[in-house]
């Protein structure tokens, strides 16, 4: 049987031996840390709740089995076999495909830019959590000190702290405003921390990953235990996990499940390829892929339990306060003794009073308090972390402790994902050998981190948050889908399924089963294509708009829907197209070089013939 030759280790890294993991645990934790990120905490629970609770798990598991795990296995296997970063790997698969590697590097760079800006925000909140009372617990008084600041009064103390005291957000994307110095400091600190951990590649990240990958699990466990003991937690959990099967008829659910799995595993960044390239050649990457993907999904579920028990507590709390405010209005109006109406009696008393004094009751500012309305208030992304959760933490006894734990967890989650993104950029640069040999690795990582920091300062402007949303929605999603498609097709058809199966048999000791071959050949590429087309159609249907925080808006505190101006749309198109240009660009360049070589050889032959 044809046996793939063992790859020559000495040929890879500039004549020196390629660095390797100290032990398997470091590699495992690095991959898990890279895959488990902020999305597991603030995207998955939101999707679960929006799409019918337990029912969402069905499309999620299907997407995991037919798309997530196969592509993940391809990345690990190809990195481990060819022992190079993404650029080297795709050049080895086919010189025409090396553009895929370059696109991965560009994308990882772009994503690191805005991802670390989010980590900087988390750091800001973490630094502000070391005080009691927490700064977002109350509105600051206005200049006369007769009341609170108007903007804060109109929205809430938590929103005011996020939009005004943290971001100092502009009302429109056109006015960039000035750089917020406190955010700049936090950004510098987060890039300094990233540099400190990535300075010598996996040698340093391998040591730090023990903390950054395991600390979130510790905190999640603490939150699960604490959350489940909070009053109202069970209501939140029941609301979350009650399956609503009818929602599965909506195609949007399947699309979101597939994209969630894809982005959750951090595929097509090149980070997993880089990590796997430092492995021992004979390592069971198949088992690794399955285990890491399952751990990632389990973490999402575990996080949802923690998040929703806390949000259920918050909803119950808010519902109780709503009732209390109504009761107070009634007591004050009719001069009843204090605490004479309990929350349970409220409705009966209200009906009685409405019958006897309808006019007086009508002029009271009574709100309808339904628990379901409060449970429905969910959010994803920064809204969950910086508004909903911060408010929930305020009501828990010992609020600063919980705030520190929560933001510490988010910080380490973000950091471990940053390690993967940085490795995805640095490993290919080192492998390609662009820099001369005397340039130490520390200098290269320092240069990359410094450049990223300087570019990311645009996110500390007053319109920075709007730009970050653009990066998040446009730069990342579509490009990664296309790259993953090219990866699977490149390995399955260009590299050759037989050759790939031989490699895996050599590395793991057994040939891949028909499930793998079928998914690599047919199912995953088809799924990716469908998702891509569906994504494009959805994007083109509604005009690109953003929601601005404008205190002068009539419906404030609701966010104002505004359309993107022309130049922003042009920037969006550039952002989404430029990274992918490497693929056709490099393929074309390769074609031309080959053509020129064949012409030169032909001319040389003709010359020798004639001479």
């Amino acid at each position: 049987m044809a046996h793939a030759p063992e790859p020559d280790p000495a040929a890879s890294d500039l004549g020196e031996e390629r660095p390797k993991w100290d032990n398997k645990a470091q590699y495992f934790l690095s991959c898990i840390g890279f895959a488990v990120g902020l999305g597991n905490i603030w995207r998955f629970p939101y999707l679960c709740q929006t799409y019918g609770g337990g029912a969402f798990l069905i499309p999620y598991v299907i997407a995991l089995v037919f798309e997530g795990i196969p592509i993940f296995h391809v990345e690990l296997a190809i990195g481990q076999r060819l022992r190079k970063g993404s650029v080297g790997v795709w050049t080895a698969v086919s010189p025409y495909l090396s553009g895929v590697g370059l696109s991965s590097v560009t994308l990882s760079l772009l994503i690191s830019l805005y991802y670390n800006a989010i980590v900087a925000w988390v750091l800001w909140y973490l630094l502000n959590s070391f005080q009691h009372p927490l700064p977002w617990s109350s509105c600051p008084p206005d200049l006369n000190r007769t009341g609170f600041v108007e903007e804060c009064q109109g929205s809430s103390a938590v929103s005011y702290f996020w939009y005004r005291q943290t971001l100092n957000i502009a009302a429109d994307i056109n006015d960039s405003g000035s750089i917020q110095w406190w955010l700049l400091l936090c950004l510098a600190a987060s890039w300094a921390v990233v540099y400190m951990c990535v300075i010598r590649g996996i040698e340093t990240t391998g040591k730090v990953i023990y903390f950054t990958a395991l600390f979130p699990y510790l905190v999640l466990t603490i939150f699960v235990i604490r959350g489940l003991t909070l009053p109202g937690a069970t209501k939140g959990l029941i609301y979350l996990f009650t399956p609503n099967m009818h929602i599965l008829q909506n195609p949007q659910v399947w699309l979101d499940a597939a994209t969630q799995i894809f982005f959750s595993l951090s595929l097509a960044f090149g980070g997993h390829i880089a990590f796997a390239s430092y492995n021992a050649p004979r390592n069971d990457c198949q088992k690794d892929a399955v285990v890491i993907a399952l751990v990632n999904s389990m973490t999402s579920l575990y996080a949802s339990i923690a998040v929703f028990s806390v949000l259920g507590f918050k909803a119950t709390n808010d519902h109780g306060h709503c009732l209390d405010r109504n009761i107070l209005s009634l007591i004050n109006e009719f001069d009843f003794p204090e605490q004479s109406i309990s929350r349970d009696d409220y409705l009966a008393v209200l009906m009685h009073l409405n019958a006897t004094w309808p006019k007086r009751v009508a002029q009271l500012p009574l709100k309808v308090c339904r628990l379901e309305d409060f449970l429905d208030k969910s959010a994803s992304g920064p809204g969950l972390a910086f508004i909903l959760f911060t408010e929930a933490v305020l009501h828990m006894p010992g609020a600063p402790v919980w705030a520190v734990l929560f933001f510490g967890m988010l910080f380490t989650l973000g950091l471990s994902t940053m390690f993967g993104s940085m490795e995805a950029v640095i490993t290919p640069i080192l492998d390609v050998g662009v820099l001369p040999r005397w340039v130490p690795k520390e200098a290269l990582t320092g240069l990359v981190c410094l450049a990223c920091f300087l570019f990311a300062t645009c996110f500390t402007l007053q319109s920075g948050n709007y730009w970050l949303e653009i990066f998040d929605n446009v730069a990342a999603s579509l490009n990664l889908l296309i790259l993953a498609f090219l990866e699977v097709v490149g390995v399955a058809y260009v590299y050759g399924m037989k050759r790939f199966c031989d490699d895996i048999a050599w590395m793991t000791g057994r040939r891949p089963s028909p499930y793998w071959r079928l998914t690599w050949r047919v199912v995953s590429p088809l799924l990716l294509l469908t998702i891509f087309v569906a994504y494009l159609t959805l994007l083109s249907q509604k005009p690109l708009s953003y929601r601005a925080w404008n205190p002068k808006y009539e419906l404030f505190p609701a966010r104002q829907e505004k359309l993107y101006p022309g130049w922003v749309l042009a920037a969006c198109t550039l952002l989404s197209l430029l990274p992918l240009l490497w693929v056709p660009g490099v393929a074309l360049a390769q074609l031309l070089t080959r053509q020129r070589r064949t012409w030169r050889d032909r001319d040389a032959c003709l010359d020798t013939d004639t001479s």
Partner: protein
Amino acid sequence: MLWLLFFLVTAIHAELCQPGAANAFKVRLSIRTALGDKAYAWDTSEEYLFKAMVAFSMRKVPNREATEISHVLLCNVTQRVSFWFVVTDPSKNHTLPAVEVQTAIRMNKNRINGAFFLNDQTLEFLKIPSTLAPPMDPSVPIWIIIFGVIFCIVIVAITLLILSGIRQRRRKNKEPSEVDDAEDKCENMNTIENGIPCDPLDMKGGHINDAFMTEDERLTPL
């Protein structure tokens, strides 16, 4: 006749102090909310204390130093506990302007709160906004202190890592030259020793000749 006068006076007083009267203020107390089990009952003695506090506040206003407790009138006490009050002038025929009363109460709100163990939320003077406490701004915000500590630690760690990296690289550059020196020495000794390579003998130490004995043979199997 005296009874008639008495009724007349109380009637006038009643007219001066009425819900919604000119220069009258409504006060609302939430004693049970503030103190829970330690709540005291609101009786006439407490009302007397209240009148005393209002009179005290008015005495702090210039030109009103002669205000007496009897000039403060309370009416419409409900179970809530809420009531209305007015402050009359020494002739007890007119009420003092609301602006003066308002300023006086605002200046001394803390003392009034303290007398009843309440705060601005549980002792409300409707229509008199309380001055909010200034925000507790320490001279250096806490976050900057913690930021400074973390940043310094990170910079020190980076410097140490870079320095250790430079040291490692220097050691690696020195090693090939040291190995070359050792080989030269060995070659010199070789030429002295008739060309017999001394390296293998030196490394083995001369005790065990590995060509003839393995580890297993030393242990006799049972």
